[in-house]
């Protein structure tokens, strides 16, 4: 057995996705360098590396808006702040959100008012403007749209690696191919983490396990109000630049964006998806996706699909993440339930979580604690695919 060369740590983070790596970097950056990340497979092997790679600030709740707005600022500087060896491929060509009914447009208007009050530069666009943004878009049934020019895309593997690399340079340790088997607690306190490569004693554990957040919390006796759901996605061959923004619709149920590399990434949300840990891909998705996208963006008909895959959304009752310490279990922190938008808010989540763990003043007011479900303070995020 390859035992870890470490048996104690200030903080142990479970999950080497973008969230876990961002938390590790921010802890080290804020002065706590005795941090360990435990990852069952390789970095970004779960939901991070399977996501649609979009970065959006056009949300319908205050918390999602602020987390994504602050994260965009961090993405803008990330190549420098994290001394990256490989460009994170950040692209800001906007998100175009299409409405297919007056009711949906009314919701968009409410969202816009909220976003603009939080200084997010989104706006309603006319049919003529839509045509200017994407000339070949099929506008049949479209009742209106909103656009935010600073939304966009980044490469999830590169971003995760950037955080991981800088965290390690600052002293953090990352153990990949290391499975967490149990979390030991005693008298309402964390004692340590049992892995297949040995035991690490610690007083602080962060659950950043993405699709497997429920299972990890259960090891500490905590049942979380989250469920995992399979979402499928595909990528095409690369071609010359054709499409600037992410084109997205909640009612038509699609998202599609061209990456800086030239490939198109696209997906849609499953209808009535059962709770599932399956990450297999389906022929049904391939056909349905092709049908949806070629109807909306006919110019893509001649593009070849190179690969399809699937990943897990870890969904909460209000489609907003759960962040913070578990009441009654000192030192057990949650960064879970990202409901399909963990990648784009990971930069700010990392800062906030590090501040909470280190007992510092928080950079933003935060209402995403686990207790909100018991208090009944749910604010449903209406805008998810």
């Amino acid at each position, binding site marked *: 057995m390859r035992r870890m060369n470490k048996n104690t740590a200030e903080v142990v983070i479970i999950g080497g996705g973008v969230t876990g790596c961002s938390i590790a970097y921010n802890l080290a950056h804020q002065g706590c360098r005795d941090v360990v990340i435990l990852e069952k*497979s*390789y*970095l*970004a*092997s779960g939901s991070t*590396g399977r996501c649609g790679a979009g970065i959006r600030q056009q949300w319908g709740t205050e918390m999602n808006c602020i987390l994504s707005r602050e994260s965009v600022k961090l993405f803008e500087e990330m190549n420098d702040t994290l001394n990256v060896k*490989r460009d994170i491929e950040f692209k800001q060509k906007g998100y175009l959100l299409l409405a297919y009914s007056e009711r949906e447009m009314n919701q968009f208007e409410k969202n816009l008012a909220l976003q603009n009050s939080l200084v997010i530069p989104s706006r309603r666009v006319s049919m003529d403007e839509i045509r200017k943004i994407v000339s070949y878009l099929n506008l049949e049934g479209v009742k209106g749209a909103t656009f935010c020019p600073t939304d966009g895309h980044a490469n999830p*593997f*590169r971003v995760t*690696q950037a955080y991981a690399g800088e965290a390690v340079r600052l002293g953090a340790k990352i153990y990949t191919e290391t499975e967490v088997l149990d979390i030991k607690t005693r008298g309402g306190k964390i004692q340590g983490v049992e892995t297949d490569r040995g035991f690490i004693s610690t007083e602080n554990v962060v659950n950043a396990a993405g699709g497997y957040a429920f299972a990890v919390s259960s090891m500490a006796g905590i049942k979380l109000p989250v469920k995992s759901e399979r979402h499928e996605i595909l990528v*095409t*061959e*690369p071609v010359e630049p054709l499409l600037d923004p992410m084109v997205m619709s909640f009612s038509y149920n699609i998202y599609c964006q061209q990456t800086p*590399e030239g490939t198109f990434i696209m997906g849609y949300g499953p209808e009535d998806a059962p709770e599932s840990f399956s990450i297999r*891909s389906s*022929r049904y998705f*391939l*056909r*349905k*996706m*092709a*049908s949806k*996208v*070629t*109807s909306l963006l006919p110019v*893509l*008909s*001649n*593009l*070849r*699909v*190179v*690969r*399809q*895959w699937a990943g897990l959304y870890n969904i909460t009752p209000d489609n907003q993440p759960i962040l913070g310490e578990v009441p009654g279990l000192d030192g057990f922190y949650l960064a879970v339930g990202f409901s399909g938008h963990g990648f784009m808010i990971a930069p700010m989540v990392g800062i906030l979580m590090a501040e909470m763990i280190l007992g510092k003043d928080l950079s933003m007011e935060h209402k995403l604690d686990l207790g909100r479900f018991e208090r009944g303070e749910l604010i449903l995020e209406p805008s998810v695919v």
Partner: protein
Amino acid sequence: MSNIEDKTIICRCEDITLAELRDMIKEGFTTLDEIKRISRLGMGPCRGSNCLEIAAREIARMTGRGLADIKMPTNRPPNSGIKLGVLAGEEDE
């Protein structure tokens, strides 16, 4: 030697050279899954039909492991590039 490494393209879809591959392995990326995601090696239209085997051999050689111990990435559908228009037509049948 290094000159030849610099000019030897091992992944033609993504223009990755042998020197770049060896640098990644030296940097600590010693699985195909990691190298693929960091560099896009094997993620192009040819679906890794040439580069993955070359990269596996290099990892084995540089880390002193047997080729059989180098795990191949998951082979994802479709098996060859299919046009979106063709797939969309299938749904109508």
